[in-house]
């Protein structure tokens, strides 16, 4: 199954939401490596992802979205409403 969102697309979204250079968003980035990544800006990111990928992410997954690989896995796991 084709991924709903590729890393490069997520990278640009994250750079936009976190107001940082896309280069900061590495494939293994976490809140520790991105200064503006906090729990509230993560909500903005999730809303941006929902809009771009046309999916709905359960609020129960928020606490699991603590790295780029985890976010990509949740976006592309195919269990969205």
């Amino acid at each position, binding site marked *: 199954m084709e991924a709903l969102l590729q890393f490069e697309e997520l990278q640009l979204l994250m750079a936009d939401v976190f107001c940082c250079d896309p280069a900061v968003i590495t494939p293994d980035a976490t*809140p520790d490596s991105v200064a503006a990544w*906090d729990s*509230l800006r993560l909500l*903005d990111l999730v*809303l941006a992802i929902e809009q771009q990928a046309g999916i709905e992410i359960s*609020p129960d997954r*928020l*606490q699991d979205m603590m790295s780029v690989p985890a976010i990509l896995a949740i976006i592309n796991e195919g269990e969205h409403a």
Partner: protein
Amino acid sequence: MEIDKPPKLAAIAAGVASLWPLHAKYLAKSFTDYGREDLDLLETLADKITQIMGDDSDRYYKSYRWMCEIFNKEAFYFKKFKKYRIRSFEEAEKEVYSNRAFMTKYMEGLLVSQLLWKNHSSSFLFFKKKFLRGVQSDFRYLEIGPGHGLYIAAAAAQEGCVRAVGWDVSVESLRQTAHALARLGVLNKVVLDRQDLHAPTPHQQLDHVFDKVAVCEVLEHLEQPREALIALRRYLAPGALLYVNVPINSPAPDHIYLLRTEKEVRSLFFEAGLTIVDFVMAPLTGYSLDQAIAADLTVNCLILARDTHG
């Protein structure tokens, strides 16, 4: 240069970070901008919280983490739909207040947040430095929704406090307050009653008795906060000072009345017949006031007011 954190405050922050490493970045912002005097006052708060937690600090820290995750879900709903998820007291009663297990964890989490959330610690500093400071003579204190007990304990311990009374509609909340006050050794100085401001009261003898009245993070739990403020005025002694802490844009599992702006808060007081004498806005941790307002994030309005006609 960053000022060294006092020991009990630092121990609580370290305890939470140890249990929840991903929260360390947030905690690093919890005490920025505070000077020595404020940190010393917050150390007294940390001391009280430590006493209340006793040997159960890990459980309290877990409850804090649980509560933050619940709040995050509510914040997600709020960002998406621009409104609070629940709208009536009945819903809050069903989901939160009548659920003893939920309430216990919720109040344990809130206790820890009083130190770690900047909008909460700012409120305690305001309470101590502006509301309680400068008391010249004996005073009678009433608190609506004493919750974690930290404010009523501080008032009861203040020199000149001859009477301290706490009212709440929730038996479970009063139980938690009593537990905290017992741990702090001031339960015998406080009277706690189950009392609804709107209900006919047997308290006529308390009309116009209280010199200091505190209502901290209560109005947002009510369907009719204006009516509550009006009802409260009857208990204010002539010249009494009222402290209200009410947040704007503050999603939580039991917040039902949404205030969005400073203007809406000021209007609420004006319509209730109260004159604001001091108004400070305390944004959430890690955000300036301008940033918080621009993004519709939580800002606590810390207000001193008097009865316009009193």
